[in-house]
């Protein structure tokens, strides 16, 4: 466990030194802050638009961080040949993969935290500035704590994306890893269509294949409750817990897969 912690801390430090990361976070914070201006372009419901934009920013910029840093984690070590000196130490390959993953997740969570603080700061300001009559008409307060549920699920979704990016990076190039990760992320949003495949196709094998894929592929749409929290629709604790557990178990599966693939990889 100590080895995992050391690797994780190093990955975190390396990510913090990475200027691209700063630009992404800065851009996201700026976008959230300027969403106030965007709200002025519309007639009413500017608070809804600001919430939508804030949550989407956290999701999109988190995704970019997860994919574009995740795909380079293992590949960089191999490319720089530092993998040889690392593996010569008393560290198992599984610990190496787990440490890399934990480091990136730490980076990701810190970034999501920064973006969330910026997002809530804008919302608190808007809530404070608005007259009580308008505030009362909102379906939920500006800085609605229920949005933390949506941000929590976004975080778990991004942790899963990170695990998938890491998995692909254990055996393929960064470009291919990025394409495969983003491809899987897109497919994961169409999961519900695979379930209802028999409505459009008559072939039984095709229906079975679609149904199998429905269960096997990650269901990313399940992590999306942005619209519900923005409209102050109740999202049960049961749903949040069930989805979080689903995400964490899937992450464990992908990480085990990554460790197995990486353990079998020949660096000679």
């Amino acid at each position: 466990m100590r080895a995992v912690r050391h690797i994780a801390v190093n990955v975190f430090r390396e990510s913090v030194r990475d200027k691209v990361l700063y630009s992404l976070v800065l851009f996201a914070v700026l976008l959230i802050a300027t969403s106030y201006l965007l709200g002025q372009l519309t007639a009413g419901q500017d608070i809804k638009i600001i919430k939508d934009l804030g949550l989407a920013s956290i999701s999109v910029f988190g995704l970019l961080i997860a994919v574009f840093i995740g795909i380079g984690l293992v590949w960089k070590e191999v490319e720089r040949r530092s993998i040889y000196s690392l593996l010569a130490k008393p560290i198992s390959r599984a610990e190496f993969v787990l440490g890399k993953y934990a480091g990136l997740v730490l980076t990701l969570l810190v970034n999501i935290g920064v973006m969330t603080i910026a997002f809530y700061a804008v919302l608190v300001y808007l809530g404070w500035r608005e007259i009580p009559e308008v505030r009362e008409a909102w379906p939920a307060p500006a800085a609605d704590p229920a949005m933390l549920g949506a941000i929590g699920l976004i975080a778990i979704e991004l942790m899963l994306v990170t695990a998938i990016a890491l998995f692909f990076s254990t055996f393929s190039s960064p470009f291919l890893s990025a394409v495969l990760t983003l491809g899987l992320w897109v497919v994961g949003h169409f999961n519900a269509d695979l379930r209802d495949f028999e409505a459009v196709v008559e072939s039984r094998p095709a229906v079975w294949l679609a149904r199998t894929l429905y269960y096997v592929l990650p269901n990313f749409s399940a992590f999306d409750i942005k619209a519900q929290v923005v409209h102050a629709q109740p999202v049960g604790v049961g749903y949040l817990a069930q989805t979080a557990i689903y995400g964490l178990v899937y992450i464990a599966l992908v990480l085990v897969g990554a460790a197995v693939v990486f353990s079998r990889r020949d660096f000679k």
Partner: protein
Amino acid sequence: MKAAVAMVLLLAAVVGLQALREQSGTLAPQAGTGNLLYVRSGEFMTRAVLSFDSLAADVYWIRAVQHYGRSKLSGGVDKKYDILYPLLDLTTALDPKFDIAYRFGAVFLAERPPAGPGRPDQAIALLERGLRAQPGRWQLAQDLGFVHYWYLHDYLRAAEWFKRSSEIPGAPNWLAPLAAVTLAQGGSRGSSRQLWQQVLESADADWLRVQARFRLRQLDAMDQIAALEQAVKLYERRIGSLPMSWADMVRTGDLRGIPVDSERHPFELNPFWGTVTLDRASPLNPLPAPEQPR
């Protein structure tokens, strides 16, 4: 240090050049693609935007508002609001709980030309879809009554919708009496005033409150016109001829001064027919259709 100075100088040059271009009118011409809408299928868009459907709905809503505003403010006589309904359709398909898109969208669609496309049928279709998506939103049922009342003058249907709206849990208690008043005296200025007063008091957006205040000022002007025409008739009965101008009525003491509307524009008197109208420059123009009581 040298680089910093160079950057400041170059930035100043860029700002100066841009200002110069603006002054000399050499800015790029408008692309003229404002009315283009590449995708019109809500179902397709819902899939294409993955988990960002709510954000995409916001983008289409902003486009709808901009399209409506730009068309309304355009100088041309033949104002086109041709993509207003498709934009609202996409907005509400992407986010079926986007209340304001239904409510404001219906007003945009129903407004008579040139202030809008004059399509209360599309406004009704939009609101009915909203009510199907959110059967518990009494405001949408109220708005349906409002469109039937104000734009179609169908007071029977309006009263039906106000009644339906009043029966939805959480509806305010003034909706049931409003249904009764609409049924009894729909089209009268009194019932119109009651309707707009309720909109003013219950509106949760500035835009709607501004609309309600404007309509109430129009109704005030209509009340003033009715009272002035009555005064002109009394003058004619007493003097034996119509007044040639307001000054005649001021001299006889029938009026204390030149009558003006709430926007400080004097009313116009037709000395041949004795009718009173708004000043052509008054922002209260055009007044709604005259009373059509049941």
